[in-house]
């Protein structure tokens, strides 16, 4: 089925008549309908389902445009209609559903039932109405209602399924799809009609009770006990199912808590490292100040002895060339001699008289003593020079070492600062504790649940044994009554038929489930990433696993919206593929996919892949997109877009359609 056109008349926001032509081109098979939130994307999408099957899932069931309704006066009649023009097996059809409304004094009421009309185009180009029942059957042939939800896929449903996936719930959507694809509705109804053995309802139950009625009080007593046990077992099984769901959720929680904690542990380690570096920087800064002051002090105290060094040799050389390095008598001053001469007595006690030899000698000596002679002074000078010459010989080395030691701190500090600046994010200690508490709660709940499940299972099998025993007992008693004979044969037949149908159906269902699972995985790999395995268990739990390089599975997958959407896209694409495959007589020349595509949940690469894969699986793609996503989608699908439409929102109650 390919949809050529949709015509809306007063349908919700679409006041008066609105028409969209869809691209029917085989290559450019995409029609993009862009619209803001609230403009009417979901409405438009629901118009398809309403037209074909008469159902919508609007929260408010009223279909008539609010402006139209408000403007009606008593006695007015307004019409809401949706018409689809479709091509099926090379024939053109018109499918139309109409609902009339009448204003009665204050209220607007629906007039009887809606009108549903399917017309087929004849060779003259005229559309000829099909009889009512044929019309319904024809639409079913175009697309079975059970599967329609996957071909007309709205945003709400997408969110609902995504939530199911993220919260690890059993997927009723998946189950429904598999049932729809198996297609053996008659068989399923037969199974239901026969009724499960042990249940009161259904054919089997009725035979059971017929037999019992004919029996004695013992039999009805046993039947009562069996009934009780069976309903108890049923409840237990339901309980086990619920507990298993809960177990899976806690298990998921635990994995995510552990991962979070691991991340936080890394954060804690980072914080420790940060603090260590911070302390290192501080202590290095302190040491640096200390070393700097030590260097200053050393320079202030020792530089004199060092700076003077080159002057020593030169000065001493000068003195040497002056030949003035004469010696006086150590520590004897000219004043000393002057005193001796005036006293007239030498140090040795001899008399000194004016003009004698001793006086002359002493007078000559006086000239070699300070202040007349500088020899002695030079001696002291040389003495000082000698001590200076050896005092600061390692000054340069010391300064070099001290400067290097000082500058080394900078290297350590800068390195530490770089490392420190790399460590930014920290975990909150309180948050760590709260997660630890959550983790231990989940652990306890999990172990309690597992215990409960084991106990319930044990109880179930105990009940089973007891029921078997009771049934045998019943059988024995029943055999003793001849009038039961006939009914017992019927019962056995019914049981066998039920068993066979059930086994066949289950096999078929499993086959479909596994095939769908395989297709989903293949498509998912194309639109998302490799290395993720999606599995659907017998209870329709959808589980995602990471496949490691060594081929092992790890169930610790970080689920996110993008991923869940990707799984759903893969799921829808998988169903379309299988529906196409089931259509072996090739009467159906294709399936349309009408869907909301919240592309902003994905990154560019994935958008590209989704935009490439979906149009190759469905023959026709009608995609509803938010303004913000539109540009991206058009960028990647540009070569395959046949038509572009815009839903223009005029007010809360009125939108219109424009081709772009």
């Amino acid at each position, binding site marked *: 089925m390919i949809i050529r056109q949709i015509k809306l008349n007063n349908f919700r926001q679409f006041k008066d008549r609105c028409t969209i032509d869809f691209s029917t081109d085989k290559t450019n098979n995409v029609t993009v309908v862009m619209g803001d939130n609230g403009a009417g994307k979901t409405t438009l999408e629901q118009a398809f389902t309403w037209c074909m099957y008469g159902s919508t899932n609007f929260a408010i069931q009223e279909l008539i445009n609010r402006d139209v309704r408000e403007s009606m006066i008593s006695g007015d009649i307004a019409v809401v209609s949706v018409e689809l023009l479709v091509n099926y097996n090379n024939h053109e059809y018109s499918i139309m559903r109409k609902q009339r409304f009448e204003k009665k004094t204050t209220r607007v009421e629906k007039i009887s039932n809606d009108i549903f009309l399917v017309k087929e185009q004849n060779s003259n180009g005229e559309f000829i109405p099909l009889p009512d029942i044929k019309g319904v059957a024809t639409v079913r042939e175009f697309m079975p209602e059970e599967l329609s939800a996957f071909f007309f896929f709205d945003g709400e449903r997408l969110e609902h399924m995504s939530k199911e996936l993220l919260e690890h719930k059993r997927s009723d959507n998946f189950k429904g799809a598999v049932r729809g694809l198996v297609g053996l509705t008659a068989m399923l109804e037969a199974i239901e009609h026969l009724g499960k053995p042990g249940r009161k309802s259904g054919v089997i139950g009725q035979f059971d009770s017929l037999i019992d009625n004919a029996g004695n009080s013992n039999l009805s007593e046993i039947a009562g006990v069996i009934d009780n046990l069976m309903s108890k077992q049923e409840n237990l099984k339901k309980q086990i199912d619920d507990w298993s769901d809960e177990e899976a959720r806690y298990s998921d929680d635990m994995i995510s808590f552990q991962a979070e904690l691991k991340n936080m542990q890394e954060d804690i380690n980072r914080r420790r490292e940060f603090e260590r570096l911070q302390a290192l920087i501080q202590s290095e800064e302190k040491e640096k100040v200390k070393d700097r002051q030590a260097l200053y002090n050393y320079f202030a105290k020792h530089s004199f002895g060092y700076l*003077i060094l080159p002057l020593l040799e030169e000065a001493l050389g*000068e003195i*040497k060339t002056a030949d003035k390095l004469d010696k006086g008598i150590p520590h004897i001053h000219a004043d000393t001699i002057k005193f001796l001469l005036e006293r007239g007595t030498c140090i040795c006690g001899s008399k000194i008289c004016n003009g004698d030899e001793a006086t002359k000698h002493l007078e000559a000596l006086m000239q070699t003593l300070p202040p007349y002679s500088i020899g002695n002074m*030079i001696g002291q000078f040389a003495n*000082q020079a000698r001590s200076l010459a050896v005092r600061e010989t390692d000054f340069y080395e010391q300064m070099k070492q001290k400067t290097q030691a000082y500058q080394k701190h900078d290297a350590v500090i800068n390195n530490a600062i770089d490392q420190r600046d790399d460590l930014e994010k920290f975990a909150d200690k309180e948050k760590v504790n709260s997660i630890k508490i959550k983790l231990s709660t989940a652990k306890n709940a999990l172990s309690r649940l597992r215990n409960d499940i084991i106990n319930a299972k044990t109880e179930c099998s105990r009940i089973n044994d007891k029921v078997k025993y009771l049934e045998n007992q019943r059988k024995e008693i029943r055999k003793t009554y001849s009038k039961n004979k006939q009914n017992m044969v019927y019962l056995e037949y019914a049981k066998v038929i039920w068993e066979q149908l059930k086994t066949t159906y289950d096999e078929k269902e499993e086959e479909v489930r596994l095939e769908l699972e395989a297709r989903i995985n293949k498509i998912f790999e194309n639109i998302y990433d490799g290395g993720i395995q999606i599995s659907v268990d017998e209870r329709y739990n959808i589980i995602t696993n990471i496949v490691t390089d060594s081929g092992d599975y790890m169930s610790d997958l970080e689920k996110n919206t993008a991923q869940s959407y990707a799984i759903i896209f893969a799921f829808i694409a998988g169903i379309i593929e299988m529906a196409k495959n089931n259509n072996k007589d090739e009467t159906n020349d294709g399936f349309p996919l009408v869907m909301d595509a919240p592309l902003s949940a994905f990154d560019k690469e994935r958008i590209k892949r989704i935009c490439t894969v979906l149009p190759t699986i469905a023959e026709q793609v009608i995609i509803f997109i938010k303004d913000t996503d539109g540009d991206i989608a058009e960028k990647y699908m540009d070569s395959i877009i046949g038509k572009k439409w815009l839903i223009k929102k005029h007010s809360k109650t009125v939108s219109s359609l424009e081709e772009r």
Partner: protein
Amino acid sequence: MFDKQIIFTGKHAEYLRKLAKGSSKDDSEWVFQSNYEVLLIAPVIGFIYNRSAKAERDAGIKDNNIFLEAINRVRNDLEFTYRILMILHKKNDLSTEERLNRAFRYDRNDEKRKSGDEVFWGYVLGGIEVLYEKFIEESHGKDELVQNIYEFVESFQMTKINDFDQDSVIKLCKQAGI
């Protein structure tokens, strides 16, 4: 000689204040803790850098004194520097005798020492200027100051000390009669 307090005036008073600012309260972490530490090396540096300056007066700048008590701490070394500078100053212009007289003979004669003192204090002021330029003007921040001090020492080592011959100095000292 060096028997009374020394008064610095004008910009040299200010330079010295900044060079020995460890004594002021704003930043105790500094190279020279006291004026006398600067005074000790200033004449040597002035001479080595061949930099002499005249005292200036500036009513706007407070004088900077070095008291006798502080001078006494470095007196021996100051006297030694004085004598060396007297020997080496204008080595080629003045007679050896005159230079040695200035170095050794006029310790107690303020009048005769006047020309020598002028030379010495000229180098002191020149040295203060050199130190001010290197340590204050050219150093932005403490790391740069450390680097400048090191470079100052290193260049001194390369140009002046590498040829220093300790044995030859000791030999000359012996010849001078000790």
